[in-house]
């Protein structure tokens, strides 16, 4: 369709969407809404298309709406019986059962304190009920999820579209920095990033790097990255 890559505003109507040849369906993503066979835009942004029949709007957004299956970085705020309340920047906190950790049983509770960071997946997210978070996959293994070691590191927030940029396979800042700096990051789809480097100085440098690349392209990122590493090394 010729509209792909153009800017749309809420209320615009889309037509001529390319359907899949097998099922004759069109998959509408975030920012698009169907109503009686016509498609409306409900977020301002750029229309994107993926073969064969995927359409969505890529928009700037800071408010997080919990969605099923997304990996999020949450802060434990409260403990009520056998569930933890976890703030995931949604309209209400998510619940996280103490049983949904790797190796947890009724007897053997995970060691989680209020204020800890947890990286998990949203098991259910619905506009009518509170979201539920888990830190294990369907096979019962943690697979990188769980409590993030709380000694050190720095957590900050950024816009959701920036998060998607950071998580796209083409994003090269972390890889380039990783060639010369040992560090660890956890990126949640809810707009939170946690970074930990060897020292506070390095952590700050990585955080600044991540914050400043939101509107840069690949080449600019490369240049910025080199500068950052040079400054860190003391040149």
């Amino acid at each position, binding site marked *: 369709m010729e509209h792909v890559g153009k800017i749309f505003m809420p209320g615009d109507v889309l037509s001529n969407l390319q*359907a899949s040849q097998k099922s*004759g*369906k*069109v*998959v*509408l*993503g*975030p920012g*698009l*809404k*169907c109503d009686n*066979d016509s*498609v409306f835009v409900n977020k301002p942004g750029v229309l*994107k298309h*993926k073969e064969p029949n*995927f359409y*969505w709007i890529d928009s700037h957004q800071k408010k997080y*709406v919990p*969605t*099923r*299956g*997304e*990996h999020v*970085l949450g802060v434990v705020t409260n403990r009520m019986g056998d569930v933890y309340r976890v703030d995931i920047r949604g309209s209400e906190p998510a619940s996280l059962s103490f049983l949904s950790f790797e190796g947890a049983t009724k007897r053997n509770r995970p060691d989680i304190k209020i204020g800890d960071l947890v*990286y998990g997946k949203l098991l259910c997210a619905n506009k009518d009920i509170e979201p539920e978070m888990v830190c294990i996959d369907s096979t019962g293994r943690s*697979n*990188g999820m769980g409590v993030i070691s709380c000694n050190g590191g720095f957590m900050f927030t950024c816009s959701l579209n920036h998060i*998607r940029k950071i*998580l*796209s*396979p083409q994003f090269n800042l*972390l*890889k380039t*920095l*990783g*060639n*010369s*700096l*040992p*560090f*660890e*990051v*956890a*990126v*949640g*789809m809810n707009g939170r990033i946690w970074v*930990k480097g*060897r020292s506070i100085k390095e952590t700050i440098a990585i955080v600044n790097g991540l914050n400043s690349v939101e509107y840069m392209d690949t080449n600019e990122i490369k240049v910025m990255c080199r500068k950052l590493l040079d400054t860190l090394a003391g040149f």
Partner: protein
Amino acid sequence: MMEAQEKSKLSKNVLQMKFMRRSVVRLDEEQNAEEEKQTIDDEHWAYDIPQLKAKESKFQCEASYLPFEDLVFGRMSYKGFNKEIEKMMKEKNTEQSLAEADRREKEMAVSDDEMAERFTSLVGTVGKKFAKKRKKAEKEKVTETPQDTIDTVQTDAPSKKKKSKKKKKEFMKPNEDE
């Protein structure tokens, strides 16, 4: 039911007596339960209207960005900072590259179905070329199967070619007559 009713028909006076209190309550409960059974059965909950047919929409909505953008897993570690995460990253990377290679190979290579189809049409024509004149004549009478023709493969090609040309002419004639 009839029996129960007959049994329960004790006189009012007897039922009013103190020691009969409990059986009065029981009888009342039984009666209530029976009445409820009668009023609420399956039909009570069924609608008497034709079923609504859900209109199949051309569009399928997805709330998440996950199926649209190929996002990587959000936990990363570099230069051995967190060994566990690093190991996981490596596994995922190899998995991905393997899948990619698989996909590419499938695109380049001829699929099994395609191969089979091509050869079923080829076996007959190639087999014909190598078959002896006599055998070929036999075969034209009987419908040939690919396996038969493979059995008769021989290697004096030049003489065969002439004969096959002749055969062709003979075969065409009856067709034209018809």
